[in-house]
């Protein structure tokens, strides 16, 4: 046996700094607004200031008279294109026709009414002020519960009840469980509307080559391929004449997992004017017109025994859909239902979902997409049950966790949890936090009259979207690995990233499999002309699904490498490792670069083998993955002002195997910060007339550096058998776990005053009012 193999460095599992960073830290990366083209024109979009109104007239002549204005398009000009696509389907789903520009009516503030095309972006903006629109304002409804009341204004006149769909799921014997319960706790819980606020707003550049009859759309998107298919359909353009490029994307969080009116519209404009066109969303437009997240009103009932056993759960979920369905709008609350049982063993569950139209921008996937709402609900209800029976919140969880020997675990909502060790994660979090000591500290604090709280959330999430039968689009992912003639390696992935770091993590996989250096690997993505069809980056899927596709492509490639190696070494017994192929008999070696060169030179092909070293794999996952973890938050509430101070934040997450711990920590930190935003600060507020009154970053507070505590992270590692890498995914974990942990902590802090529940965001005035009431009680 050969012993001379030079084992190269192992990359997987190491804290490797990212390959994508040099361009980002030097300001040389190319985001959509950085693209300049000769003859480029600029678009600005006139948007409705009314939440509901009839359009009586639009006068564009004053705008068109300006020499810098090239064209103005309104609803009547775009009747042949669209609609904006909805990819989700449910039985009986009502789908309003979503035209790319309003026709005779507007349905939410920000609804696009006209698009101005001008020679520069300043004139395009000026021209918006020169267009006159006569509106006849109509009554609007912005609150989903009010929209359900009899006599509420109809968002779409054809459906006066404002109900887009209802959805029922039931398992076990819920009535029996509730009848047998010692305790039933009921609570209305709101998961408020949030604004995703990717730091880069959306933007589109469209370039029509009339000679080639081909259109290129550059868009800040998470899903270039799905966009190509859907925009081609909306424009009536053959799909192979449309190229979509996602350049550098400045954050998405689900808000760019969509196809918007503007992508279709800019494609249309480029074809009309025969010039490249650019539209960049302003922050105000981003708040008004890019999807929002959450927007639940949930009515929960939990049934349990005095010994802490959870028997069952009932839920009525009212989902604020907004005025239209964007790509996945109606599917989001169904994800909540899937995750309702959390990581607990009870079998009796009933969920009724009502999807409600409102005169607001649509809700859709925002980091966690349905799962933060579910986790927030179940984790709050478990805490409330514990409080009701006087049990420690950790103890009730230990009592009800699905046990390690029960995996794969079939949930009552039809999922199969892959692996888990929920108790271990919670034990670890309790150990890191010093839970029992904290409870002692709390006793002391309470004696001093301080409002000191400890909150736990233990979560499971459904990740690695997902097997195709369970997703609106395909759930697979593609990868191509190509060893170039010089031995350098190019990876093409369909999981186009927007900050997650696949250029590094996928390269790490390649390094270990092919024995090359990390600098020898380039990971390309985001261009439909370059990369085979792929699905995209969302739902914590990129590494678990996209990475696995890379892994399988590498396995096939290694077989081919060995074949070429065997031919070059003139041996029938070779192995490939550490970047060299070795003859197991003679110990002679040939390097990957030599093999690559020979494979393209193709002078001596192994029998039945094509030239070149390229391997493409489309991997269909057999199941989702189910990461989990436990977060513990210590808070203190200022009795005088209601202000919340986060004193400790401990996050123990289990995302299966880890390729790069540095990046995993980054995902957890970022996720926690967004969960914290929801728990403490963020809320998209529409007034009664459908005006978004948190219309700018001056009013809508996303966390600043001073508002996020230091997060103490730790991990347990329970690999999944769903993929050979054992990876589960981590993108959404922090967001899902954080908000219930914070709210549980603050409720715990205020519990001596008789507080049982508080809806997010936990703004100081709300807490102050509770403290005032408690003081009187």
């Amino acid at each position, binding site marked *: 046996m050969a012993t001379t193999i030079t084992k190269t460095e192992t990359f997987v599992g190491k804290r490797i700094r990212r390959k994508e960073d040099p361009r980002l830290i030097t300001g040389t990366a190319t985001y959509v607004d950085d693209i300049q083209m000769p003859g480029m024109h600029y678009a600005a979009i006139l948007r409705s200031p009314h939440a509901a109104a009839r359009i009586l007239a639009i006068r564009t002549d004053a705008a068109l008279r300006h020499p810098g204005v090239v064209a103005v398009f309104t609803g009547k000009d775009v009747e042949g294109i669209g609609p904006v696509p909805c990819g989700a389907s449910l039985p009986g789903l009502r789908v309003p026709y979503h035209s790319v520009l309003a026709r005779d009516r507007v349905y939410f503030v920000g609804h696009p009414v006209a698009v101005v095309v001008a020679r520069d*972006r*300043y004139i395009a*903006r*000026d021209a918006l*002020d020169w267009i006159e629109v006569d509106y006849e304002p109509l009554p609007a409804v912005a609150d989903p519960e009010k929209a359900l009341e009899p006599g509420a204004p109809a968002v779409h006149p054809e459906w006066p009840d404002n109900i887009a769909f209802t959805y029922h799921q039931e398992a076990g014997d819920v009535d029996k469980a509730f009848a047998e319960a010692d305790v039933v706790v009921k609570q209305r819980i709101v998961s408020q509307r949030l604004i995703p606020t990717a730091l880069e707003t959306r933007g589109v550049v469209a370039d029509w080559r009339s000679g080639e009859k081909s259109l290129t759309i550059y868009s800040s998107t998470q899903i270039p391929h799905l966009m190509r298919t859907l925009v081609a359909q909306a424009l009536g353009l053959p799909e192979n004449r449309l190229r979509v490029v996602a350049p550098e994307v400045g954050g998405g969080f689900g808000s760019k997992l969509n196809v918007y009116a503007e992508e279709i519209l800019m494609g249309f404009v480029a074809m009309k004017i025969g010039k490249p066109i650019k539209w960049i969303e*302003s*922050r*105000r437009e981003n708040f008004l017109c890019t999807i929002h997240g959450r927007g639940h009103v949930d009515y929960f009932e939990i049934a349990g025994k005095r010994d802490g056993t959870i028997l069952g759960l009932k839920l009525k979920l009212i989902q604020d859909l907004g005025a239209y369905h964007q790509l996945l709008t109606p599917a989001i609350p169904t994800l909540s239902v899937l995750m309702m049982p959390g990581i607990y063993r009870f079998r009796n569950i009933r969920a009724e979902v009502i999807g409600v139209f409102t005169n607001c921008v649509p809700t859709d996937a925002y980091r966690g997409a349905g799962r933060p709402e579910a986790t927030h609900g179940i984790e709050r209800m478990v805490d409330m049950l514990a409080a009701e029976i006087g049990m420690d919140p950790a103890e009730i969880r230990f009592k009800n966790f699905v046990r390690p020997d029960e995996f794969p675990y079939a949930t009552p909502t039809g999922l199969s949890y892959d692996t888990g060790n929920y108790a271990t994660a919670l034990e670890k979090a309790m150990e890191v936090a010093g839970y029992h000591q904290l409870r002692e500290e709390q006793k002391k604090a309470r004696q001093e009259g301080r409002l000191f709280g400890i909150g736990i959330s233990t979560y499971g999430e459904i990740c690695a979207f997902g097997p195709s039968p369970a997703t609106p689009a395909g759930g697979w992912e593609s990868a191509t690995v190509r060893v170039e003639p010089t031995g350098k390696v190019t990876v093409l992935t369909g999981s186009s990233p927007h900050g997650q770091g696949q250029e590094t993590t996928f390269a790490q996989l390649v390094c270990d499999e092919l024995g090359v250096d990390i600098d020898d690997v380039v990971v390309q993505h985001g261009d439909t002309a370059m990369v085979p069809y792929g699905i995209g980056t969302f739902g914590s899927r990129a590494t678990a699904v996209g990475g696995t596709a890379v892994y399988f492509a590498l396995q096939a490639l290694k077989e081919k490498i060995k074949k070429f190696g065997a031919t070059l070494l003139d041996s029938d017994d070779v192995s490939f490792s550490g970047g060299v192929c070795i003859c197991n008999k003679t110990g002679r070696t040939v390097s990957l670069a030599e093999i690559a060169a020979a494979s393209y030179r193709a002078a001596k092909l192994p029998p039945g083998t094509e030239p070149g070293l390229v391997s493409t794999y489309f991997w269909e996952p057999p199941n989702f993955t189910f990461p989990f973890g436990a977060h513990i938050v210590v808070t203190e509430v200022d009795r*005088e*002002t209601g*202000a919340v101070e986060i004193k400790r934040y401990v996050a123990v997450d289990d995302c299966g195997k880890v390729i790069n711990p540095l990046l995993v920590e980054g995902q957890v930190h970022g996720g926690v910060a967004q969960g914290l935003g929801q728990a403490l*600060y963020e809320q998209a*507020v529409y007034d009664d007339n459908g005006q978004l*009154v*948190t219309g*700018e*970053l*001056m*009013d*809508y*507070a*996303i966390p*600043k550096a001073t*508002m996020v505590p230091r997060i103490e992270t730790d991990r347990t590692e329970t690999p999944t058998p769903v993929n050979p890498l054992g990876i589960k995914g981590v993108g959404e974990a922090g967001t899902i776990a954080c908000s219930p942990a914070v709210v549980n902590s603050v409720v715990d802090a205020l519990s001596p005053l008789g507080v049982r529940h508080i809806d997010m965001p936990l*703004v*100081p*005035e709300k807490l*102050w*009012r509770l403290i005032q009431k408690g003081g009187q009680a």
Partner: protein
Amino acid sequence: MIPQNFTYQAPKTLEEALALLADGTAKPLAGGMSLIPLMKLRLAAPERIVDLGRIPGLNYIREEDGKIRIGAMTTHYEIETSPLLRARCPLLATTAAHIGDMQVRNVGTIGGSLAHADPAADYPAALLALEAEVRLVRAGGERTLPIRDFFVDVFTTALEPGEIVREVVVPVEAPGTGTSYQKVAHPASGFAVVGIAARVRRGDGKIALARLGVTGLASKPFRADAAEKRLEGTDGAETDLRAAAAAVTEGVEANSDLYASAEYRAHLARVYAVRGLRSALQAA
């Protein structure tokens, strides 16, 4: 994101600037930290802008005759870090550190901030507590106003058309004076939900001087005279502070917005008045 067009003038001398501003149709531009965002949102659309940024001699902090004179174009950062102010009038320097963020403090000016008169701006609380004066100039004349006469209402000052803030004058603190600026910042905008500037001095064991400037609470910043009177002559015990703080909101119509109702704002003002006074007394 894009302002309306305007005519831009950048005079090199104050006289030239005042002449350009004399007819009241132009908008003076100082740091632009409030004006430019408003212009980008097109909530402001001045037809002519006179940039004061090219005029030498408007940016200084100097001590003269027991007073500190601060040129209108002095930036928040310069005020925040001025060794003279830190030593001789620390309240203004510490207040400046609360304004906006580092970049805004690098550019924003005291004159511009005062002229904009945002009712939640930080400076006014401190300047009121300091009993500062503002020197205003216009073509062919100037006048000096006590700061409390300068603020008229929301975004509205005593500035006449064509008139600008030339200088702000604050006292050199007498020994034994303690000051503090305490603020509840809006989590998004950073503006003061309430901001309390407290300034106290003891004499013979009693509170000899108490000054309280309040911002964010009402449609204009104000001095809480009743509270000051209630505190002066007391021992400055916790109960005295509380009694004084209670007077801060008496007769005041508090602002209400999405983040804080009038009732809560008033409550915060009282709580922060106690905290401010406590902290000022500790520093005295």
